[in-house]
């Protein structure tokens, strides 16, 4: 080998070794850089997904929702003063909730009925629910605050997209009386698969205003007279898909809250309510019976008011997942304790069309046979929840 070639070979080998060392170092540096960028990307993604980049942490534990229903009623009555042709935003409801921990949470329901509330207006502003719930044991919880009384089908679950008919049925409205909320404490839980219980001690009804219908006794937890409390128990069986059976018993030792009205006092009362809600494939049936037994002394205030009872049966059929048809037969009587004709009877039939699962268009026809009167007509509505 000539000296020139030797020198050239040595230089080339040295350069190659140096280049190899540089490449390895570059790869390590690039790996390090990629790892750092991946970590930054992961952190950024986590931050965006958790919303922590812009929002305070408590928002993640706070929930917001609501529902509303607009009704158009066109009812023609034999006694013309009872005709009803009107458009009404019957309910506009907002939910607010907050989860303090995994086992302690707050829930509330704030409602405006008939759009405008105030002196001389049709509507009301109501807080139907405002309670703290504590999961004190697996499958058991306790509530304290204002809550919906555990009775009937609609009293607790009444988002308009969850039931048939523009208006809520009159049996639960006039007998139970839905929507019924009270202040107090309630324990709930599951004692076996599908078997649930609810036990509540709460403020009760007050008929010391001299009225007799059970619905007129609702105090709505508004400076409610708590001289005499109400005791509620319910058992529910949901152990078969599509089937729910419920039994509620309510006892109150004095519907007059300690008052004496026209010489009448100590009106003890108990409600028994049983219902079945069954859905199998496209076919569904709801049926409910409820009866109040009130001390006979109330008959001195209003004849027959010692028994207030009613029932309904509501078959339904889902023609498609979005379209359902139903029929309902109802009877109720707030003065069933005497022989006078005071019974109401109503037949409804109609459709629900769900635009999406929580938005329902509704239409139905109704005929109501009242004592000495008949009402016929139709109702249209739209209801939604979110």
């Amino acid at each position, binding site marked *: 080998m000539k000296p020139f070639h030797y020198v050239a070979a040595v230089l080339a080998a040295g350069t190659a070794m140096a280049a190899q060392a540089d490449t390895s170092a570059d790869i390590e540096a690039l790996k390090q850089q990629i790892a750092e960028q991946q970590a930054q990307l992961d952190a950024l993604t986590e931050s*965006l997904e958790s919303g922590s980049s812009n929002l305070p942490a408590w928002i993640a534990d706070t929930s917001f929702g609501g529902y509303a229903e607009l009704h158009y009623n066109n009812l023609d009555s034999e006694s013309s003063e009872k005709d009803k042709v009107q458009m009404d935003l019957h309910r506009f409801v907002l939910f607010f909730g907050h989860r303090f921990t995994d086992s302690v949470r707050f829930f509330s329901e704030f409602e405006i009925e008939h759009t405008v509330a105030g002196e001389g207006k049709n509507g009301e502003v109501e807080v139907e629910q405002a309670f703290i719930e504590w*999961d004190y044991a697996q499958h058991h919880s306790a509530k304290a605050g204002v809550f919906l009384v555990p009775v009937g089908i609609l009293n607790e679950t009444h988002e308009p997209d969850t039931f048939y008919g523009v208006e809520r049925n009159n049996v639960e409205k006039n007998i139970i009386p839905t929507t019924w909320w009270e202040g107090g404490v*309630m324990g709930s839980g599951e004692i076996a698969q599908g078997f649930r219980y609810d036990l509540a001690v709460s403020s009760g009804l007050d008929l010391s205003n001299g009225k007799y219908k059970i619905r007129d006794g609702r105090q709505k937890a508004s400076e409610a007279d708590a001289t005499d409390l109400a005791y509620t128990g319910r058992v529910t069986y949901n152990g078969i*898909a599509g089937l729910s059976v419920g039994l509620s018993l309510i006892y109150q030792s004095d519907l007059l809250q300690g008052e004496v009205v026209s010489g009448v006092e100590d009106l003890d009362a108990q409600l028994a309510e049983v219902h079945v809600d069954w859905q199998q494939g496209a076919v569904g049936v709801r049926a409910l019976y409820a009866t109040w037994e009130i001390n006979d002394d109330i008959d001195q205030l209003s004849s027959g008011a010692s028994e207030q009872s009613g029932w309904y049966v509501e078959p339904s059929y889902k023609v498609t997942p979005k379209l359902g048809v139903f029929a309902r037969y109802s009877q109720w009587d707030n003065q069933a304790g005497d022989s006078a004709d005071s019974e109401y009877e109503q037949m409804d039939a109609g459709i629900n069309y769900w635009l999406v699962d*929580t938005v329902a268009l509704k239409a139905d026809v109704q005929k109501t046979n009242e004592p000495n009167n008949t009402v016929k007509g139709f109702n249209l509505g739209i209801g939604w929840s979110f």
Partner: protein
Amino acid sequence: MKWIFALLLIGIGFSVRADQVYMTPTEFLNQTFGETVPAASVLWLNKAHQEKAETLLGHRAPGLRVRYWQQGDRVAWIFDETGKEYPITMGFVISEQTIESVAILIYRETRGGEVRHSYFTGQFVGAKLNESERLSKTIDGISGATLSVNAVEAVARWALYLQTQIQ
């Protein structure tokens, strides 16, 4: 009467721990895959996915990505979905575009916890997504738990759709 109710309210169930965690996500994955749980994969949600989410879930999917665990044809998915107030954590196992199992892992809603029971979740086994993007099987609901039932059904459809995006 008053004392009976008070005693019942106080006395029930104090001996048990407080929470509604029926199965942790880790337990769900161990139950699904045994001791060898595959590493989580990630599906980044693009515009088309989010448009489909609005149809199937009724809203855009939260987050930018969805994690899943795949071993052969079997894929496990874990989602949070709100029925009324708070998210329900649920797990799905899907193979060959068919639901193999559904489990409610953590329930946080006030009412409707019955959706965790096998008589409800078992109805989803064998369900596919049909051409109209609904489940191929009818799911019977639970009275008083309508919103939780709707949430589980919606996520079942979403999980079946996402499965088509990775296989």
